[in-house]
């Protein structure tokens, strides 16, 4: 029996529908998610199926939307808020960082904020500096938030359902280039646990920790390197907060080398955190090469398509980087 294939966007839509079927407290809110179907057509026809009360078009005020969503969550609803672009979450910082992330702690655990935020992120669509960022590490720095980055249609569905179940605010970063990616997605509502990394490919020469679209680029690079006798182990991190340190530690103990590949700006990002965790862990004594980070350029994402590509790691960059690391050139 072949398992049915869906696109990443369809998988998210199915998760939203199944969550609304199962729980009348779940509702959706965001800009143009109703009749228009969402800027990336993720919500599609959900407004026809569930009505405007549960699939709410919101005015262009991210801070206002986030405030309504946090309030609804405190009152017992389970809002799923779509930011049209993850970049616009900067407008809602007060509600996300100072309210949603803090209230359970400041009120002694007497309330929860079961809020889910969906954030289309990343470059590669020609949307320029203000619509192409990868800000997930900013939010992962805040205790009280959970931050995930599913990289496959199956994980997009399973992690979104897990996020909706979660009693705390969860931010789901969806890479825009993945929306059209197809993959096998089981039909029943299932959960992929938050905080567990996934070994997407096993190998013995180098551990590559990658996120979102970089998982696929790292896998492609690993295919190329395999023809040269270099076997890369690719770990899909999936969750930035909490981070599954154990899976990475075990892998580095096996491979003795570590590379982190991510689209966010290289400095002060997810690669720094993973490098530090490995340097602090029992895997330190297993490292046989310097740790390598491949991240975004120290610059805003350019509009020019050639420069836009050059600003974030591409497959040849990963191939060269890993080859140099494994062959002892760095």
């Amino acid at each position, binding site marked *: 029996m072949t398992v049915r294939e869906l696109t990443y966007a369809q998988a998210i839509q199915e998760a939203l529908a199944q969550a609304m079927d199962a729980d009348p407290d779940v509702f959706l809110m965001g800009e143009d998610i109703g009749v228009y179907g969402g800027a990336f057509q993720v919500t599609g026809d959900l407004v026809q199926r569930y009505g405007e009360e549960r699939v709410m078009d919101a005015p262009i005020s991210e801070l206002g939307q986030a405030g309504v969503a946090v309030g609804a969550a405190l009152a017992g609803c389970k809002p799923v808020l779509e930011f049209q672009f993850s970049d616009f979450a900067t407008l809602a910082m007060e509600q996300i960082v100072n309210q949603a992330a803090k209230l359970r702690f400041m009120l002694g655990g007497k309330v929860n904020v079961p809020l889910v935020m969906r954030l289309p992120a990343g470059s590669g669509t020609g949307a320029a500096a203000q619509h192409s960022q990868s800000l997930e590490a900013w939010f992962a720095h805040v205790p009280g938030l959970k931050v995930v980055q599913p990289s496959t249609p199956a994980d997009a569905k399973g992690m979104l359902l897990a996020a909706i179940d979660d009693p705390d605010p969860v931010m789901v970063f969806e890479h825009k280039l993945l929306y059209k990616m197809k993959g096998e997605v089981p039909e029943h509502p299932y959960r992929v646990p938050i905080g567990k990394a996934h070994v997407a490919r096993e190998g013995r020469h180098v551990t590559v920790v990658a996120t979102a679209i970089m998982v696929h680029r790292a896998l492609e690079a690993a295919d190329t390197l395999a023809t040269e006798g270099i076997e890369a182990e690719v770990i899909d991190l999936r969750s930035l907060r909490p981070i599954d340190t154990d899976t990475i530690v075990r892998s580095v103990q096996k491979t003795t080398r570590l590379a982190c590949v991510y689209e966010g700006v290289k400095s002060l990002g997810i690669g720094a955190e993973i490098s530090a965790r490995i340097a602090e862990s029992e895997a330190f004594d297993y490292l046989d*090469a310097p740790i390598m980070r491949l991240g975004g350029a120290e610059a805003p994402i350019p509009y020019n398509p050639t420069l836009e590509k050059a600003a974030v790691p591409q497959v040849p960059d990963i191939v060269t980087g890993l080859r140099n690391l494994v*062959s*002892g*050139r760095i």
Partner: protein
Amino acid sequence: MAVEVILPRVDMDMTSGIISKWHARAGDRVVRGSALFEIETGKASMEIDSPADGILDNILVVEGGSAPVGVAVAYILEEGETTVQISSNSIRTSEPVPETERLEHPTVTPLIPTSIETSASQAPRATPLARRLAREARLELKTISGTGPHGRITAEDVRGANMHPPHSQILLSLSMICRMDSLIDITERLNAIALRTPGDQTILKITPEAVAIKALALASQRLDHPLLTRASIRHGFGHILPNVSERSLSEITGLLETPDASGSGTAVIAVWPLFQQGIEQAAIPFTPPDIASLTMGAIVETFAPVNREPVLVKQMICTLLCDSRLIRPDKATQFLQSFRRLLEDPVLMLA
């Protein structure tokens, strides 16, 4: 800041390369990405690009000379940057400069920009894994030559050094004949009880090997010796048996048959119980970080004099092999004697 021009590894097996041609001379302006020199390995020759823009300086390996992978073979200076003289031993080039070349290149003493050299760099560069392996094998890092970039010592270098230790071990081999009657008797008695009480999980079938291994663990633990006191036991070339001295005989029997947990330890004694294999005596070698091996030969029946009369006894020859620099002959003898006492009278294990 000056940029090092590194001799790169162009294939996985390469450890050194010959510079067949320089495309620029010292003092020439070079451009990042343009061909700077050519290297020859056993398999191929290849052009290497300049790693930076600047002025080529301080060519340390002349045409025809060779160098290990990863060392600096020249430097590229920024505009206006100057060089200072430093001692020559911080640069590792493997071939002396021929006399004719010296005339062409008057600056034979390696020159290096101040910004590169620091006093801390006297300690050998090594990866964390290489440091750990060297520590475990008790090898000094400064005796190992590194093949990584900047002469960095990698795990492969340590493993290579361990295969050819700079000072070979001074091996000591001691053998003793042990009477095995009590040990076999106790094993048979326990197994007979185990057979009669099949439901009792505290009394299970045991083997003579398990009794001998427990005796070995106790003998080493009871000795006053920095390594032997905390030694772990490895089963042949296989896994380290965790906490043998604290386990029951049936647990040890189980561990020997199906290891469900591998232990760890730094001072390891490899034990080879060859009771059934027909080998009467052997001294099986061990590799550091193991510190000794103990081989127990076949249990044979023979006539031994007891009160001037021949008596049929079971006996076995056991042989301890160790590095006499780690375990001195007097301690090794004491260790073997104490082991024999426990083997010949296993009831002492309860003491």
